């Protein structure tokens, strides 16, 4: 496990940065935009409009 962590330092740092960026997006209210899009049928996605 320690070997895995040592050999994956960059990956762990980037993953942590990803979490931070995600948190930044959530705090801006982006999740609501995603939710509103996802709970209605996306006409573009299915090929209607």
């Amino acid at each position, binding site marked *: 496990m320690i070997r895995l962590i040592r050999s994956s330092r960059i*990956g762990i740092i980037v*993953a942590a940065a990803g979490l931070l960026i*995600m948190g930044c*997006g959530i705090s801006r209210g982006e999740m609501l935009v995603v939710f509103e*899009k*996802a709970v209605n*049928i996306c006409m*573009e996605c299915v090929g*209607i409009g």
Partner: protein
Amino acid sequence: MDRRNKDRQTGAAGKRRRMIQVLWAFLTNSYLVGFVQGKIYRGKLKNLCVPGLNCYSCPGAVGSCPIGAMQAVIGSWNFKFAFYAAGFLMFIGALMGRFVCGWLCPFGLIQDLLYKIPFLRKINTFKGDKLLRKLKYVILLVFVILLPMFLVDVLGQGLPYFCKFICPAGTLEGGILLVLFNESMRGALGWLYAWKSVLLAVTILLSVVIYRPFCKYICPLGAVYSVFNPIAVFRYRIDKEKCTGCGACARVCKMQVDPAKNVNHAECIRCGACKDACPVKVIY
């Protein structure tokens, strides 16, 4: 190596992977009522993205497609960059890279199954194959980021251009079923549905002949994850001192990667076939 030998060598790893692919596809599309009624899930789980390409308009989908989510936020009038979706992709990518493509993507599973259909001559590679694989990065940049960001209406809203004009997953997972069950939607069909149906038909036919053509050449999600392949926490390692250079790993790779040269190549989807085929077990 003939195809039968290739399949035999990938057997053990393949079965375990297939089981997880099916289980994950079921878990992320477990709103079974939707398939019967032709409606989509509208619960709170849709706030969350799933790692694979899984259209949120699929009647069974309980989560959101990260590529769709990214375009929805970039194209909205009040945001110009999607930190939530980008951070999610960064997090998942840094943890497992294209492992998602090989194990957790429902559209990848569909292509895997289509490739199992016997065909006279399967195509492994062709002239221009390597160049064509760069197309997915262009699609990511142009259709997922730049067009929704800059080609906007008077309110500043951009369309999900990739979903609308390119992605066949939405037509397959959502379009066909919803149109079958919903009469008013049937009345609204037009040139776009025809275009997307053609794209879907081409993708299906090509998937019988070429292994995962959508993943290799088109998928922007695979393009994002591929960037993280070399640094991902859960990536492949190879003991180069013990490697005999027999080439067994390269011969079984359906993505045409040579793991002995680069075990974390951008095209590697971590299917595990090379690990299984290695006679001295130096890939781990």
